């Protein structure tokens, strides 16, 4: 069960191409106090969430218990775990920071976002490699289709060890088309997302690869996707997905490295939605060697002068 939702707010917080390690100042981005003990990924997420709301993704018209949030991450705690490991293995476990200790649980990373936006409906963290950002879009849609929420924040946050490339966060606010129309909201486009699992052992057979093509075809339906972005990891799964796409009625397939986490596909979606000139029907996939495949189907609204905040 899923639902098509419209995107009414987008927030992107990523380092500029030539950024150093200090590209993000939480005091400037978030405020002078209260953010010191948040892991950077959490800080990025908060900043992206605020930008998505400021961008027009209104949550204040939705009852708090009808707001949801789904956040994806793969490397959001990489630095914290590395630091904790170093502290413990150096023989000084007592020196672990008590203020940072709660973040040992990955689900805690998103709780500050949830608190800040008074999200009292479903909240979930998804962590499947590469695809978690797209899964955040799909999981929220399922919650809405099941009647559990009226709007949700879908987000991805990352803070890889070898950053700043691949660091940052993207947040989107989605709601029902009718609700957005009722408040005359700016709509970037509609988005539907699916998550598939194609085990590598299955894709090793001709029958398995054929089945992948059939499933992808059923997911895409009759829409004419002029351009396709595939974010992968160079795995056999990625090769199988790209091969399957060539047999489907889709346009040019553009491949790019997914990078160390799940942020790149969501960042691409944000760019497509906010940059004038994007083809109307777009497909963005994330693929992981473990067999995870995330599929985001976009129908982009008319070109707009608004950009992702």
């Amino acid at each position, binding site marked *: 069960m899923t639902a098509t939702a419209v995107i009414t707010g987008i927030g992107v917080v990523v380092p500029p191409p030539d950024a150093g390690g200090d590209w993000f100042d939480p005091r400037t981005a978030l405020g002078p106090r*209260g*953010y*010191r*003990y948040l892991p950077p990924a959490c800080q990025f997420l908060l900043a992206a969430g605020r930008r998505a709301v400021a961008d027009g993704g209104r949550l204040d018209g939705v009852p708090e218990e009808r707001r949801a949030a789904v956040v994806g991450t793969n490397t959001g705690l990489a630095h914290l775990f590395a630091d904790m490991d170093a502290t413990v293995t150096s*023989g*000084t476990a007592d*020196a672990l*920071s*008590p*203020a940072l200790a709660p973040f040992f649980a990955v689900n805690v990373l998103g709780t500050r976002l949830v608190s800040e936006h008074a999200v009292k409906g479903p909240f979930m963290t998804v962590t499947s490699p590469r695809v978690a950002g797209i899964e955040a879009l799909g999981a929220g849609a399922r919650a809405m289709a099941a009647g559990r929420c009226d709007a949700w924040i879908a987000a991805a946050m990352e803070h890889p060890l070898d950053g700043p490339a691949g660091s940052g966060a993207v947040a989107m606010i989605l709601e029902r088309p009718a609700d957005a129309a009722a408040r005359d909201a700016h709509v970037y486009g509609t988005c539907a997302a699916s998550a598939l699992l194609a085990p590598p052992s299955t894709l090793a057979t001709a029958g398995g690869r054929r089945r992948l093509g059939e499933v992808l075809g059923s997911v895409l339906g009759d829409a004419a996707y002029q351009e396709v972005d595939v974010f992968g990891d160079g795995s056999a799964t990625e090769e199988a997905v790209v091969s399957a796409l060539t047999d489907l009625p889709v346009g040019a397939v553009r491949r790019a490295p997914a990078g160390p986490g799940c942020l790149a596909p969501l960042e691409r979606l944000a760019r497509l939605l906010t940059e004038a000139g994007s083809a109307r029907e777009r497909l963005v996939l994330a693929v992981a060697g473990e067999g995870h495949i995330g599929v985001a189907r976009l129908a982009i609204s008319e070109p707009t002068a608004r950009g992702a905040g």
Partner: protein
Amino acid sequence: MTEQLSTPTRPLDKEELRALLAQILDVDVAEVTDTAHFVDELEVDSLMALEIAVQLEQTYQVKLGEKETVALKSLDDAYELLSAKLADRVSP
């Protein structure tokens, strides 16, 4: 934590301690007056109290007991406690 018993090279500097506490608590140095109450005025909760204890232990290479941590209510308290700890450490 393994307590380091190296001899301090200089007396406890109250202004350095004030700056450290301000950094730990994420407040301006001016807010950490000698008597500003950690809980009532500087919004220290139980988690942050533990953070203060750990960072003081790390910075000054001392060990703080649970009761000593609970008794820390202000910069003056921290200064007195640390001064005593450091004095004990250099006593023959």
